[in-house]
């Protein structure tokens, strides 16, 4: 142990931060509430039954924003495969297509080949950094608005509301014994689930084949079994995860909330209950009698009722909070009704909350976005994006790779010339067939080349091959160097014989017999 005097002074934990334990227990926290029992009660059960969440309908700024995000994301998901994009006769006309069979990925004017997988890697890195950026700036915004699990759960919860009514009606129906009415309602609701799930799974496969063709093939039972299996699996997962698992996916299955929890700091914008303002809680009546004694929270539990994951935001940050902001909408309404200022629950940073609790002026929330951490994330994110755009713009659509024959490394011909054989891969990334000229660079005069399709008597220093549209043409090339010319390296060049005159060079070796 080090001498206690040399250690830095122990910091007192800020009491304002200690919301999780300072507040009385709540039934809504899905983890903490699971095993609560007094010592005298029987031991807890080993397995925990899910407590259904019947979130109440709410309207407000965040609800409308969620509607908008749902509309945009679902539209993108369902419409994208149907967008046509003319690429000429040699390439598919689907704007976004993952052509696994031919190993091509089309996205509007961009076509990615397997060897350019670094573009996909770059996109994934950008997605990861983008999530870091969003998380450090506005907390779990991804979880709250854009995550497919959230969007589809939201959709299914609207179906619940549409079929069974709002919160109280749903709770009643849940408790009611099974009877004709409940069976009818449940089968109706689950049928709607199933339709949505089928549409979800069905739309997915359209990204992997020509959408109109696959769509008609699918219903005439002519599509491949992989298509049906994929639709089946995705229908099931949508039905199960969106219709029944819901918030349990976020709490138990998804690693991302746990990672995000580690990435949030006191400068991240979070959905926060301002307990300095709300506590102690008291009814409107009590607060009227003794205004000094009670805070703004009237314990109406509206924030709990509207929560899609069924938590109580007043317990502080927790894994179940996806920061969708619906509790802000609910609380703002109540505050307006009882004539108190809005924002008892609001997007705020922890620093801001502490400053507010001390009665200090707080900077506007957007200032929390501009800080070194977010700026660094943004810079890296932007740099990778810019580099990829540059690479995309600068890439040539003609490429050449060469691999020399290793067995045998060289070949002696009758007249004493030395021949090496090479496998050339000439890549034509344009959606039309192109003539390409292959030439030898850096070999002595008299060096000749022919291929497996060109007769040896037609050997010449340059040869022209036609490369089919969007393909790699494999050419076996034979190169002879006249006797007595020690060469050990040279290059093949390929030039597209069109107005672009794209060029690529591939260096390689030339093996000769060891001279005695």
């Amino acid at each position, binding site marked *: 142990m080090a001498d206690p005097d040399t250690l830095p002074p122990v910091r007192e934990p800020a009491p304002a931060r200690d919301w999780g334990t300072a507040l009385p227990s709540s039934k809504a926290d899905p983890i903490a509430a699971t095993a609560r029992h007094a010592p005298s009660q029987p*031991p807890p059960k080993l397995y925990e039954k899910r407590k259904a969440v019947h979130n109440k309908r709410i309207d407000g700024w965040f609800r409308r924003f969620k509607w908008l995000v749902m509309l945009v994301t679902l539209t993108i998901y369902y419409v994208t495969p149907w967008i046509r994009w003319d690429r000429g006769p040699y390439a598919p006309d689907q704007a976004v297509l993952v052509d696994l069979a031919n190993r091509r990925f089309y996205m509007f004017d961009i076509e990615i080949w397997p060897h350019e997988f670094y573009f996909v890697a770059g996109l994934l890195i950008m997605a990861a950094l983008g999530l870091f950026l969003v998380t450090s700036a506005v907390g779990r915004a991804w979880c709250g608005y854009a995550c497919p699990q959230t969007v589809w759960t939201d959709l299914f919860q609207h179906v619940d509301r549409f079929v069974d009514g709002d919160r109280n009606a749903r709770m009643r129906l849940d408790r009611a014994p099974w009877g004709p009415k409940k069976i009818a309602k449940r089968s109706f609701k689950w049928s709607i689930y199933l339709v949505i799930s089928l549409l979800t799974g069905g739309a997915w496969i359209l990204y992997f084949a020509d959408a109109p063709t696959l769509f008609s093939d699918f219903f005439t039972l002519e599509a491949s079994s992989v298509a049906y299996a994929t639709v089946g699996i995705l229908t099931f997962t949508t039905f199960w995860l969106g219709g029944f698992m819901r918030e349990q996916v976020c709490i138990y299955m998804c690693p991302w909330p746990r990672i995000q929890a580690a990435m949030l700091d006191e400068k991240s914008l979070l959905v926060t209950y301002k307990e300095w303002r709300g506590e102690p809680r008291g009814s409107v009546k009590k607060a009227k009698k003794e205004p000094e004694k009670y805070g703004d929270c009237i314990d109406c539990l509206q924030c709990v009722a509207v929560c899609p994951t069924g938590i109580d935001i007043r317990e502080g940050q927790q894994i179940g909070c996806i920061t969708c902001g619906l509790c802000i909408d609910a609380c703002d309404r109540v505050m307006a009704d009882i004539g108190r200022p809005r924002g008892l629950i609001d997007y705020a940073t922890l620093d801001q909350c502490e400053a507010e609790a001390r009665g200090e002026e707080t900077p506007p929330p957007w200032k929390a976005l501009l800080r070194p951490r977010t700026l660094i994330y943004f810079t890296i994110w932007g740099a990778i994006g810019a580099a990829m755009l540059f690479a995309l713009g600068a890439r040539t659509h003609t490429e050449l790779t060469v691999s020399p024959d290793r067995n045998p490394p060289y070949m002696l011909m009758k007249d004493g010339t030395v021949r090496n054989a090479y496998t050339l891969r000439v890549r034509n990334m344009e959606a039309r067939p192109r003539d390409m000229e292959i030439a030898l660079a850096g070999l002595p005069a008299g060096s000749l080349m022919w291929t497996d399709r060109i007769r040896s008597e037609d050997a010449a220093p340059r040869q022209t091959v036609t490369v089919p549209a969007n393909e790699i043409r494999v050419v076996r090339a034979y190169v002879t160097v006249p006797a007595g010319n020690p060469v050990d390296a040279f290059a093949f060049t390929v030039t597209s014989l069109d107005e672009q005159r794209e060029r690529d060079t591939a260096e390689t070796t030339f093996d000769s017999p060891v001279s005695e």
Partner: protein
Amino acid sequence: MADKSRIDEPTGTEFVGHEWDGIEELNTPLPRWWLWTFYASIAFAAVYVVLYPAWPMVERATQGVLGWSSRGDLVEEMGRADLARRATFEKIAATDITKLPADPDLMGQAIAGGAAAFKQHCVQCHGAGAAGYEEYGYPNLNDDDWIWGGELSEIEYTLIHGIRWDGSDETRINYMPAFGDIFDPGQLDTVTQYVLSLSGKAQGSAAGAELFDQNCTACHGVNGEGVQALGAPALNDAIWLYGDDPAQVRSQIAYPRHGAMPGWSDKLDPVTIRMLAAYVHSRGGGEYAGDETEEVAPEFDGDGSSDDVASALQGEGDG
């Protein structure tokens, strides 16, 4: 062990009773769906064990009700592949080998099929790169030196009938006399020097020229250019089947080695042989009818009556 019935105050959860360095484990219940997923996996396993090969037994594993096996899958897939190739095979069978290069796609497929067959049947002697082995006298198939002819039809003929092969009456055959019994050692040296001089490797002599003229030109040609129809190799080029060292050349004149290659007509089907010929021809040295190196080839007489001529020839390996 800590007291099991203790309760963790903040969460109200019971302790499991394990403690490491003051960190204790809570008995947090598992969600119910997890339990059902576990049961579902057990049910899945039970069904799987009945349907598919599962339990290892003494001889082999249990077979499963469905009778599935990965071996069966392979047989089925190979059958499908054979079916897919059939059209190409039929087309190759119907195309005369000399007409094959006129159809570049078919030629390409023949070369690819030949490459596969070569790996199975030919690499044992000629090597994976078809470069042969000088020490055994297995010829290199990549170069442009052909003992028995480098046209597609000649290569196919060699593949069908072999070289010095008992299995075919039409096999390519010749024998070079052992000049060790005819020449004295001095003459052997003189001829060796002269033969090497044909390709500029040594200084020839008038005596050597005379000996060569009298004994060798009948088969190897006046300038040692060889006669493919007889399987007499060219002696004036850079390629030497048994080596270009004077001792190697001398030994080949004195007591020649005669290589042999089996014909493949009894082992391979005509299409495979045709594809092999296309592959060997495509290795960079294939000849075409009408090449200036090509001579008007007399019909090869392989019935044995030409033994007198044949035995005077030096010939080895295949074409």
